[in-house]
């Protein structure tokens, strides 16, 4: 008979350990599966491909959203518009990272841990970031090569009025 788990420990790829409340951990489908499976008794969960820097951010997101859910439940039902608005604002601030790389890592972490809210948020943030860029800038960001031949480029420019720069 196992005593109810209130916290779990996640270990980053750098070896650092972080405690997460169960509520926060439940934001991740992956962790949720582990927690609700009685046959597994877990104490430490290694997340091998998530570095400390990123893991800290992910945990922060999970905790904030878990707290929000709890507060909503306590108020008996749906979140008010202003509360939802506030959470959106928090999300927007949260996604303001200094380096694009970090965004991609958060996205991959959200994907790996199956945190839907964070995944959608990160995808949309990246999309918003790149939507106004030129093809040249896009190639740089995603490390892509322009593999059109000069003839193809010319044909496309004429037909679609698009610029390759």
């Amino acid at each position: 008979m196992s005593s109810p788990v209130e916290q779990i420990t996640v270990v980053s790829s750098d070896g650092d350990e972080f405690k997460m409340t169960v509520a926060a951990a439940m934001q991740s489908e992956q962790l949720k599966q582990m927690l609700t499976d009685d046959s597994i008794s877990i104490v430490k969960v290694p997340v091998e491909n998530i570095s400390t820097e990123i893991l800290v951010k992910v945990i922060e997101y999970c905790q904030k959203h878990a707290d929000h859910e709890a507060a909503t439940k306590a108020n008996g039902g749906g979140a008010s518009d202003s509360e939802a608005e506030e959470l959106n604002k928090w999300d927007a601030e949260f996604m303001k990272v200094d380096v694009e790389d970090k965004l991609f890592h958060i996205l991959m972490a959200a994907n790996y841990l199956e945190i839907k809210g964070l995944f959608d948020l990160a995808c949309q943030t990246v999309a918003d970031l790149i939507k106004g860029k030129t093809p040249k800038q896009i190639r740089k960001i995603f490390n892509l090569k322009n593999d059109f031949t000069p003839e193809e480029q010319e044909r496309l420019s004429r037909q679609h009025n698009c610029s390759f720069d």
Partner: protein
Amino acid sequence: MVSESNSNLPQELLEDILSRLPYKSLSRFKCVCKFWYTLFTDPIFRALHLSHFIKHHAFNDSVFLRLSFPTTSYGFYMQNYKLFSLSNNDSSIDDTFLPRVKLLSTKFRISGHSTREFKCLPDSNMLSKSSFALAVGLGYNSITDDYKVVRIWSVDTGVYTTNRMEVYSLSTDSWTRMYNSNTRDFDFADDCFALFFKGTYYWWGFRRGDKSTIILALRTGDEIFHKVSAPDNVDISKPEGRSLAEWKESLSLICCSGFGLNMSIDIWVMKGSGAQDSWTKMQSVTSLLLEEPKPLVFWKGDELLLETCGGEIKSYNVVTQKIKNLKIEDRPVLHSVQAVNYAATLASIKGGTCLT
């Protein structure tokens, strides 16, 4: 030289990101690399993209205004068109000059706004000296990702005059004659195509008998037109005082009643499948203090576009009751207006799945 983290972004994550980009960006990014070019034509990707688009965009965020005005050139009188697009992020209007739907006597064109392509439809074998087109309607099927055009001809066989119907499908780039239509039971009004909404085409027409005005509804794939009457005691006979438009995911009939400055605009909504008695009056807009406004379409949720008899376009919010003037640069002085809601699509007009 290259930061390895970027190249580690898995393909499916990249595709998810791309499926959230606005259509304009996707058009621009076609030339990033061959893989992206092909990806944007992949039906699975397009379906994913459309699902994101629908989630985040109300259908009537954007509107095309087509202003037709007469011009003379070398002594010939012509109908000319200027197209303006109104979009949700600002109330300014930009002039695009590419007609989305351009009716040139019996020829017909479709153009894709985002892709800036246009296509002249092939002539069908109905085109002859003894026939002329009565009515045309344009529709789009998002499930099959196909544009369809319905056209009804009046044909003089020499012995009698009859109406014939044909349907064009962009995916096959050809016209198909429909033989079982009931187009002989009614007449079409001039410039009669009203709306394509939720898989159904709507036209303005008249009953053969008493010449009363009715709405004709044709479901995609059907050949039988259904007659939809106006609500009781509502006059829909004047083209300048009526409009069919989408409002909050329902079909709405907007019509004017009264005279002069006492004119009011009534908004009716069709609940249910279109049987006669399913119009519900939602709102009556009075004291607009506009003389004989012509209702156009709804956009941005609760805003109703109106044309005043002075030719200005105004936007009236049915909830807040505020009116906004929309400034249009180089608006022709004498014109008639047609307004169409649109959703920008990636669909290529050239037919098939190829973007070339």
